């Protein structure tokens, strides 16, 4: 038990030192990198390591007779969590999510310190001591609180009520519910039933299985089946359409959406928000092909009500591209990112 706890303490100290070092640039901030693709689990595991580390630390400190009071343990852990979320994860976590996590953290710290009567009493002890004010020091502290807390509360409420000139918060539903049908170039497409006319097998029939088979690795994308090179001029059918879509993409789209389709094109950072990142599993990978068709054709101005505040500079491409060209571009986007269009059955 003791050995285990010592190990935990070791992990805790090492972790804290490393984190502190990375935050304050003592050691290179890439010493332990959050690896793209593994980050979500990595983050959970890291936090778990810290919890083990803290447990070990508090055990060892207790054994050495320098136990940290439960009160400070609780507060300390919560502060640590907030700092970790703020500084460790890059890109920074939005304030709203940090607020949610902070609240959950506060609740769980409370659940932890009040899980049993003994712990709860230990936790309350410092508060009770101040309230009771048996010693002169405590009494002084109590008076200090008596003055400080109202001032603090007043300050907070003043801060909250004070008119501020902030950029308004961006609230938008990224994937609003599509309309039932959309009209492009005078033709009506029912989004639920329409199909990409170029997603075809060698017989010329719509066949998603066939085109999916041309994509070897999901997510990472861009790995091709042997002999499936769309840039080959001799290609016919699906791969030819992919190539044509690629040409249209690089003539029209890549300035914003980037040549890796990751939303970081030449002009991307002139816009706010920056263009959609198709390599992200949260964009085209979880949408139907017709949804993309609708978005490309109608652009930012075609967003429905719930897409408020319509913050998109995407032009309505139906004014520049033919229907066929739009379908081909969509085909290319899926091929290049290596995702499959979503289907519902």
């Amino acid at each position: 038990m003791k050995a285990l706890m010592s190990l935990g303490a070791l992990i805790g100290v090492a972790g804290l030192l490393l984190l502190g070092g990375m935050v304050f640039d003592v050691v290179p901030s890439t010493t332990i990198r959050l690896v793209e693709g593994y980050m979500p689990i990595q983050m959970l595991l890291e936090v778990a390591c810290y919890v083990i580390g803290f447990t070990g630390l508090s055990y060892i400190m207790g054994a050495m007779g320098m136990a940290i009071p439960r009160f400070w343990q609780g507060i300390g852990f919560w502060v640590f969590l907030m700092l970790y979320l703020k500084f460790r994860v890059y890109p920074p976590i939005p304030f709203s999510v940090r607020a949610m996590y902070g609240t959950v953290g506060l609740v769980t710290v409370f659940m932890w310190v009040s899980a049993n009567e003994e712990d709860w009493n230990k936790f309350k002890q410092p508060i009770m001591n101040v309230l009771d004010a048996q010693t002169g020091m405590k009494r002084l502290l109590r008076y200090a609180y008596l003055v400080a807390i109202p001032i603090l509360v007043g300050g907070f409420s003043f801060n909250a009520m004070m008119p501020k000139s902030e950029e308004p918060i961006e609230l938008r539903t990224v994937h609003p519910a599509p309309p039932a049908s959309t009209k492009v170039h005078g033709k009506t497409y029912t989004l639920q039933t329409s199909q990409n006319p170029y997603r075809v097998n060698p017989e010329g029939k719509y066949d998603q299985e066939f085109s999916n088979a041309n994509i070897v690795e999901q997510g990472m994308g861009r790995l091709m089946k042997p002999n499936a090179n769309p840039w080959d001029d001799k290609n016919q059918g699906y791969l030819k359409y992919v190539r044509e879509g690629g040409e249209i993409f690089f003539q029209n789209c890549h300035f914003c959406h980037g040549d890796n389709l990751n939303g970081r094109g030449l002009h991307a950072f002139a816009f706010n928000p920056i263009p959609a990142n198709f390599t992200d599993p949260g964009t085209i990978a979880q949408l139907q092909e017709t949804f993309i068709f609708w978005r490309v054709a109608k652009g930012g101005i075609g967003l429905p009500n719930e897409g408020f505040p319509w913050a998109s500079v995407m032009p309505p491409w139906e004014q520049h591209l033919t229907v066929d060209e739009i379908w081909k571009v969509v085909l290319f986007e899926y091929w290049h990112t290596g995702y499959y269009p979503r289907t519902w059955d």
Partner: protein
Amino acid sequence: MGNLISEAFSMGWMALAILAGLLVYFQVSIGDPAAKKRAVFKTFIGIISCFLLFMAIANYKTNFYGESRLLPVSLVMITVTTFIMALYFTNLGALLKIGGMMFFVAAFLSGYGNWLPQVEGGFPPVEEKKTWDSMTPQQLADEGEKIIFGGVGKNKEQGAIGKGQCPLCHAFHAGMLGERAPNLLGLPTRGNERLDDPKYSKGNPSKREYEVKEAFPGSGTAETAQEYIAESHACPSCYVVAGYGVKGTNDKQSPMPAIHKPPISLSLPELAAVDAWMYLREGIDPPSFEDLVKSYEKFIPEADRPKQADEKPAGATSLMADGSEPVDQIFAKGQCISCHTIPGIPGAVGTIGPKLEEGTTASQRIKDPTYKGTAKSPTEYIMESIVDPSAFVVKPFPDNTMPKVFGQKLSAGALKKIVDYLSQVKTGAPPPKI
């Protein structure tokens, strides 16, 4: 804040006054100084919390519809009040604390809901009323597509069919089968070619060699492509495209029914809508609605025009016949008469399909060595022929000519009536009674 306080006063002054009265009453009536002090103190707390309560209510009242994120604050105020009161009113302590806790939970969740982004669902799209003349060409074309195919965007679906029943005979897309009637792709541009056809004899209907010379006496012939389309709808036998006439009439008579007459009975605006779709789907701007209707008025006399479809509820059923009609009407509504000759049925002189004398022929065909169907009896054979026409194709007629949609488009009752009738038709015998 100021108006909140005054609002709270105006709502709660009675309660506050009663409490204040109690305060005075206790001051006067209670003798024991300790008890008096306690009572007065409690009443004082009561006044404050009562006032806070009214302030909270006032806040709710003024901000109920507002965007104010302060609403939860009033709930928190109530929570704090109840917990403070619970300290002093020990009798009600549990109730107050529970109430406070509940207020707190509700306040938290309410606040959370208000903290999240606020999106309001917009008003619904305006309900479409079929006001034909104010429709944009696209809307008109959509209506047309609904009439032809039964729904917007259904024109490529196999077997999609609307109340116009056009796809039963006509094909609409390049390369699609059209043996019973011309493929209608390119119709708007083809109209002019037809007018130039000497057989059409533009401007001189009496020289026509077709069975019907004019749509109605004095209607004349079409002058524009649109009028040609209108005439074709109103009077199919006024001009028959070579090869599509009723067999044996040497293309003098068309198997197509007049669309404005029963059983299809499209109204003029509906016909206009159908035409609008024909134009628009090929990227051609259709003539205006008024012009479209005018072109039909030329060929359909006032008395023949079907009344607006709005009078009887439209689209109640997508069936051609539901079985309540007499059998000859079923044959007419199902358009069987266009292709088949059926003894005893008026107008059923079509020759695209075999003559239907199933009382005699059905049993012969089941015995035919090439028969691969599953029917065992004549009635089963007839049913199979209707529902699954390709199961056995009578020589020398081609396969895939008869639509395969009758299984869905005729009710069971209608099918039964057809089968009953056909199984009684025997070669050489007088036709059965309808």
